[in-house]
């Protein structure tokens, strides 16, 4: 069993920049509340739940614009061509799926078994964005001059 609150930020810091770079060739730099304060245009929240040795949810606040950039890199789309909205959403779901699987191993080791849900994505308004970034457990990054916020909500089972 792992203590979610004490390890979550460290695990996110260890995993998210690596997964982002290896999957998309983009870089994530740690940032702060001030950078993320203004909600990005077309903000979305991507979420995935997990159960097993521990249960909880990983959320990622990000702009759909950055989602398109990530899809462009993942799919090696030529400059000037735009990935579809569904491709951008698919890319964000996959990014969170891989990030979550790797964070859980980082926190719990390679013995416990976790079951992950299918990632969900939904638009969020300025109020929801502010709530997400203001959470003490939120980890804020700068990616391509845009904010990305990750938050792990967990409870021991």
């Amino acid at each position: 069993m792992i203590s979610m609150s004490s390890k979550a930020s460290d695990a996110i810091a260890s995993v998210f920049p690596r997964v982002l770079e290896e999957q998309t060739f983009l870089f994530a730099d740690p940032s702060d509340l001030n950078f993320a304060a203004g909600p990005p245009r077309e903000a979305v929240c991507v979420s995935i739940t997990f159960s097993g040795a521990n249960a909880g949810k990983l959320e990622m606040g990000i702009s759909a614009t950055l989602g398109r950039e990530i899809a462009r890199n993942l799919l090696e789309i030529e400059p000037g061509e735009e990935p579809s909205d569904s491709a951008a959403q698919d890319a964000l779901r996959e990014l969170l799926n891989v990030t979550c699987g790797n964070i859980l191993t980082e926190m719990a080791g390679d013995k416990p078994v976790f079951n992950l849900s299918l990632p969900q994505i939904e638009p969020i308004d300025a109020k929801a964005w502010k709530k997400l970034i203001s959470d003490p457990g939120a980890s804020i990054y700068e990616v391509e001059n845009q904010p990305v916020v990750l938050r792990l909500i967990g409870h021991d089972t």
Partner: protein
Amino acid sequence: MSFSVLIVDDSETVRSIIAKTLRLVNISLAETYAAENGEVALRILQEKRVDLVLTDINMPVMTGVELIQRMQESEAMKGIPVVVISTEGSSTRIDEFQAMGVRAHLRKPFTPERLRETIEEVMGDINEQ
């Protein structure tokens, strides 16, 4: 040796990445098929000659585990090598995959080189002629 591969993943992005990566690392492929879940994969396996299955686990409609179980129950399919490509990091779960007949597991994110090495371990000579 040229062979046909079936890529099973609910993410179109991932299916596309794997297909591109297979071409990038010069694996000799006859045909590349793709399915968004285990159910569609089974239909393709019934209709086409497939030499290798690369499958995710966490998918809607029919998971990768169910797909592998159904393949093992089929005389025609149980000999087809299966490689799981997933976010799974639990050695307990990976041991379970191996007990089900899975030949190798590749964790996401993966490099093109790691994909090639994994397939080479399973299929032997995979170089383009």
